[in-house]
């Protein structure tokens, strides 16, 4: 496969920079700074230091023996991104972007957030590096995720409740972009996923590839060979892109992205961008998109606020169309079931996002041989979701109910 993206930020026909002219010079400056500092040994050293000493990397690649034997097929390994500081993979990217902001002389940062994980990760590094931080969050999500709103405030950030549109993640993204247009001269936008205009999809991928780089070395050490499949949840797609990317050239490794099917892909309530979407331009790039025939963006639905997004990163669209990766939908109920299974077999409460990946493993592992290997990106821990899980399960966590 060719190196992507090209100099215009294109992954095949996907990607690009579809933004107001006011932002173009800022994106070009960001791209130049990205190329400059990611070659700079002191930047790399500082980044690696913080990833290790502050966030706790490397994260373990854990052999989930009881889950594997319960499923009766492939050996399942969990890449434990949930063990990062702040409880998810998001901080890999926010540390790197905040360091870049400092190098570029910006003192203010902004971020969009859905469930609040990226917002918390941004607020955290803003505190660490002494940056002034505003986080845009849909009003609906501020209600659903009150604890994360409080966390961000505790960390010294301002949380701006977004009341436009559907009042969820996509609108938080729109509002962050609008704010950036107005304050582009002193503000750095820390975008949380492999979406948006070039260079973000490339940059966030490269800052998240540490997940896949570590997992690759770890599985080679543990098993002496590459895995047969990698499974990761895809909302915008940053943890999936991070773990997929170092394996893209290894054609024997199946790459499986799991998107949220909500109440089902044949209902109106899903976030299955790859399964049900079509090509379009949204929030700065060309990719698959949930939209109507006239190009109006359709609201997404998922039990998981982190997957509740009508777009997807352009490189995922490219991997789909080239056939290198496959994308499958998982419903809310399947994710909840898988979440409980992981709790009981391994003593790990996964985030609802990651539970979608586990649910796909539940489907695919039994069809594979006992000598085959799956690596799953366990992108985040479930503490943030416990309250909503309790609500969905009707306050019951009785072992007999779910099986």
């Amino acid at each position, binding site marked *: 496969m060719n190196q992507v993206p090209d100099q*215009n930020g294109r992954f095949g026909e996907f990607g*690009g*920079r*579809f*933004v*107001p*002219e*006011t*932002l*173009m*010079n*800022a994106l070009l400056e960001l791209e130049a700074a990205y190329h400059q500092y990611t070659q700079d040994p002191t930047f790399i050293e500082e980044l690696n230091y913080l990833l290790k000493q502050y966030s706790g990397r490397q994260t373990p690649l854990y052999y989930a023996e009881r889950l594997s034997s319960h499923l009766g097929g492939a050996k399942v390994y969990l890449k434990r991104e949930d063990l990062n500081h702040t409880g998810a993979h998001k901080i890999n990217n926010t540390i790197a972007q905040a360091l870049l902001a400092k190098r570029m002389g910006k003192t203010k940062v902004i971020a969009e957030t859905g469930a609040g994980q990226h917002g918390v990760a941004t607020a955290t590094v803003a505190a660490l590096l002494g940056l002034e931080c505003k986080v845009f969050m849909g009003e609906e999500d501020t209600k659903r995720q009150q604890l994360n709103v409080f966390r961000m405030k505790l960390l010294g950030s301002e949380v701006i409740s977004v009341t*436009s*549109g559907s009042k969820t993640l*996509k609108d938080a993204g*729109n509002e962050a*972009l*609008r704010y950036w*247009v*107005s*304050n*582009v*001269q002193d503000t750095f936008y820390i975008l949380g996923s492999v979406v948006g205009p070039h260079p973000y999809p490339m940059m966030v991928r490269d800052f998240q590839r540490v997940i896949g780089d570590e997992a690759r070395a770890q599985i080679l050490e543990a098993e002496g060979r590459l895995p047969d499949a990698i499974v990761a949840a895809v909302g915008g797609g940053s943890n999936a892109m991070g773990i997929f990317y170092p394996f893209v050239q290894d054609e024997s490794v199946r790459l499986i992205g799991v998107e949220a099917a909500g109440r089902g892909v044949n209902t109106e309530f899903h976030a299955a961008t790859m399964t049900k979407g079509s090509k*379009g*331009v*949204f*929030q*700065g790039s060309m990719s698959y*998109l949930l*939209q109507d*025939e*006239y*190009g*109006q*963006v359709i609201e997404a639905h998922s039990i998981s606020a982190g997957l509740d997004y009508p777009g997807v990163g352009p490189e995922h669209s490219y991997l789909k169309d080239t056939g290198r990766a496959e994308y499958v939908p998982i419903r809310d109920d399947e994710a909840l079931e898988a979440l409980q299974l992981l709790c009981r077999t391994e003593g790990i409460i996964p985030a609802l996002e990651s539970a979608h990946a586990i649910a796909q493993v539940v489907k695919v592992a039994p069809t594979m041989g006992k000598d085959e290997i799956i690596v799953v990106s366990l992108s985040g821990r479930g503490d943030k979701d416990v309250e909503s899980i309790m609500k969905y399960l009707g306050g019951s966590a009785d072992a007999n109910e779910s099986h």
Partner: protein
Amino acid sequence: MQTNRIDQSFEKLRAAGETALIPFLTIGDPDIPTSIQIIKELEAAGAHMVELGVPYSDPLADGPVIQRASSRALKHRITILDCIHVAREAREQGVNLPFILFTYYNPVLQLGLERFFELLAENDISGIIIPDLPVEEDHHVRELAVKTNIHLIPLVAPTSQDRIERIVRNAGGFIYCVSSLGVTGERSSFHEGIESFIQSVKAASNLPVAVGFGISSNEQFRMFSQMCDGVVVGSAIVRKIEDELPNLGSPSTRNAAFLHIQDFVRQLKA
């Protein structure tokens, strides 16, 4: 390049020493027949061309006023096709103004570029503004625009700097200068150095230069008239329409509401 209604209008204005007043409205806010009547009022008030705004679900370049107008229009599923047809309908009802379609890129893309330009030509639309299509991405659109003699009007921002030359090189119709950093919406102050910014755009292009984003008063209109060939007024008019919605909705006050809108636009350039 051939000329079209936009060029002819600017030629007349130049001869008369006047500045173009270019109002914007969101089509379908609150409904199509009202939009068509408002276009007539704009012409009666002395507007020189009109921007027909296509409502969009995710209007990145717009502030709250136009966002609200878009939501109102989208509630009854106004499409880009409806907006294009409004031009024809208004023309048939006697409107002579040149029409400029203001739309985000995705609705254009879903229609298909070829079909989009065919429809623009058929419906007598002379120019397009696509706020999320920078020069790096506009190659195919520009080719078709030239082929169909429809002007692709570019936006130039105070942050464009050394990009200005590249942006204006292949432009048609006029150059649209963004008055300040930020989204659409009324404001009391503009970008520092706005005057030298406009001067640098004028130096780079022979086309007429218009300014927009945030202009809402007669005072501001006059100030910018000194500097450039056209002034776009968007949010202020959309807000006026919003204020008049209750009156537009009732048969007994509907005509008065149209006159209020007309008066508002007339006093802008008084």
